[in-house]
């Protein structure tokens, strides 16, 4: 009997030490025939079946994921890109091609430089390589705007912000 007690104590200790990851139903075994068939045949047990009452959230997520609504790229990435670049004036946005181009924007505290952004949403899936952001910078020299390199890491920093926001958006939909 000592060993089971040690096992319990270790589990309690570990639980107290850190916050864990919530596990979904399909991470545990089952002998339910329906669940087994769905898992083995590649179907998703979470959204299979017919919704009798309530809202079919799996369908909402599928539509938000780019399979509906006239958006041919991932909707989370698309919306996240739009929101992230919303501090700049928008020049054009093509949801079918996944291209967002902003106009030139001069930060209020730096009148002698301005920025422009082009963003490409490349994927239907919510993936970290599904978005590319290119920042262009110009500085004012002698009354002329001339091209200048943006600081290193700006592009990837913007992409990180887009991905973080996309993750938040997906989380909000999934938890509804």
């Amino acid at each position, binding site marked *: 009997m000592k060993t089971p007690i040690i096992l319990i104590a270790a589990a309690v200790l570990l639980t107290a030490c850190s916050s864990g990851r*919530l596990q979904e139903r399909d991470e545990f075994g089952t002998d339910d*025939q*329906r669940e087994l*068939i769905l898992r083995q045949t590649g179907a998703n047990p979470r959204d299979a079946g017919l919704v009798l009452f309530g809202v079919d959230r799996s369908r909402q997520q599928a539509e938000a994921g780019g399979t509906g609504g006239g958006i041919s790229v991932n909707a989370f990435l698309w919306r996240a890109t739009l929101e992230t670049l919303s501090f700049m004036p928008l020049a054009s946005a093509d949801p079918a091609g996944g291209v967002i181009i902003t106009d030139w924007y001069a930060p209020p505290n730096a009148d002698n430089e301005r920025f422009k952004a082009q963003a490409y949403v490349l994927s239907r899936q919510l993936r970290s390589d599904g978005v590319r952001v290119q920042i262009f910078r110009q500085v004012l020299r002698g009354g002329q705007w001339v091209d200048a390199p943006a600081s290193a890491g700006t592009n990837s920093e913007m992409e990180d912000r887009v991905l973080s926001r996309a993750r938040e958006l997906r989380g909000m939909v999934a938890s509804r």
Partner: protein
Amino acid sequence: MRKILLGTTAVVAAGMLSAVVTPAAAQTAPTVRIGGSMAAYWGYTLQNGRSNNSGLAGGTTQQLTTGSVGGTAQNLGGLAITGPIPAAGGTVGGPLAVGAAPAGIDGATRMGTTDFVVLPAINFLIDAKLANGLAYGAQIALNMNSLEGRQFTQRRSSAPRTTMSIDEAWIYMRHPTFGEIRFGDEDGPVGGLMNAGWITGFGTGGVFGAWEQFGTRAANNRTMTAPGGIGDNSKIVYLSPQYFGFDFGASFSPNLGEGGSSGCPNDIASASCDRAWAFRGASGAGITAAGGSIGARRNEFQLSARYRGEIMPGLGVQASVGYLGSAAARDITNAGASARTMRGLDVWMFGAQASYAGFTVGAAYSTGAFNWFWGNLIRGSRNGQQVTAGIQYTMGPVTVGGNIVSGLFEGGARSAFDPATGAVNALAPGSAGTAMQRRWGWGVGANYRLAPGLDLIAEYAYHSIREPLVNPDINLAGAAAAANAGRRAQTQVLLVGTRLAF
């Protein structure tokens, strides 16, 4: 770090949800979903143990340890009770001698080899979430294949195979920080929720699969000594979150009853009553009967720890250790005193498996105080042990695999309870029941996925049981039984069919 996939798998996404849930958006009204499944197989069956029992065959006995007849007039079909009978209202614990048989009615049944089996099921799933992140809901599974069909000796009072019954039914509450609780008729952490090494993801499960639907129960030719065979008796289950790849589980069940308070009629508390902790015939109820609802197991608890992780790129591993413990009901002597005749379950289960490039291999080992079908042992019996191994490979829509199981169990008891003295006496050396029972089998199978939720299956399984000195065919009598002692009871099934789930 930036290049780590954000949410390409459901598992990863689920892990991230806990960090990004915003209370204002978290609350969800209950969603009620109906799903189901349907499987249909053609099977070619070869088995021995085909002797006939019309229910009237002379010279045979049937052990009635769980029924109750005392005090009420019941038509026993001409059966004569030869065992000791307690006072009115009690339970019959002795063997019943079957009346004389019409000449020529006994003998081997002529059985065909092919049959169809249909396995329908309906599931109800309720899911909701509160604003504080607590998810809750329930699951109810209705199976229409749980019963094994009418038995001749039961005449009109039995139910057909297609009778609907509840398989699993439980309420859950799941919190991102504290984990999940399931309460109801459900398998435990060792009983299938957190087991590594049992490779059953091909065909219908290989040697643990649907072949059992085709063979008769001669010699209990089944492989129920698998995690799912521990039973989905009413229990409360705790499943922890995952910490650094580790998670833990525990469960408790007071008895073997499903549905709670089962088998406790108004005026007679029989052996099948959930709360009976001592009853006549407990010594013969170590192996569960009647679908697992009746047996001597009491105060069952399960503990399990599991690790899952990717130790190399593409190489996933999983390992688990589990403990299954229990007490056992006591028997009753002729004098009305309770006697401790059974051993509690005391079982350790270890398992590990690895997956790489479509391959999954695994093995599991169980050892400790248990008999086949996870039965309780009578005092003086030896521990059991069982090993299983399997491999499967998935390539596109095709999955193929095979598994094997071999167990050594006490089988027939080598000691017996004497209700006259209250003692458990060892049988004479060399008599039937003193040897160990070997149960082993193997299976191979293949699936072809036609669509998500639909596949075609072909599978073959072999299973064998042998215990020296013991006649595996209980319906044989006299010289035929003696000649059959120590022989093997075996079943082979080839099945082909299809399954659909929605």
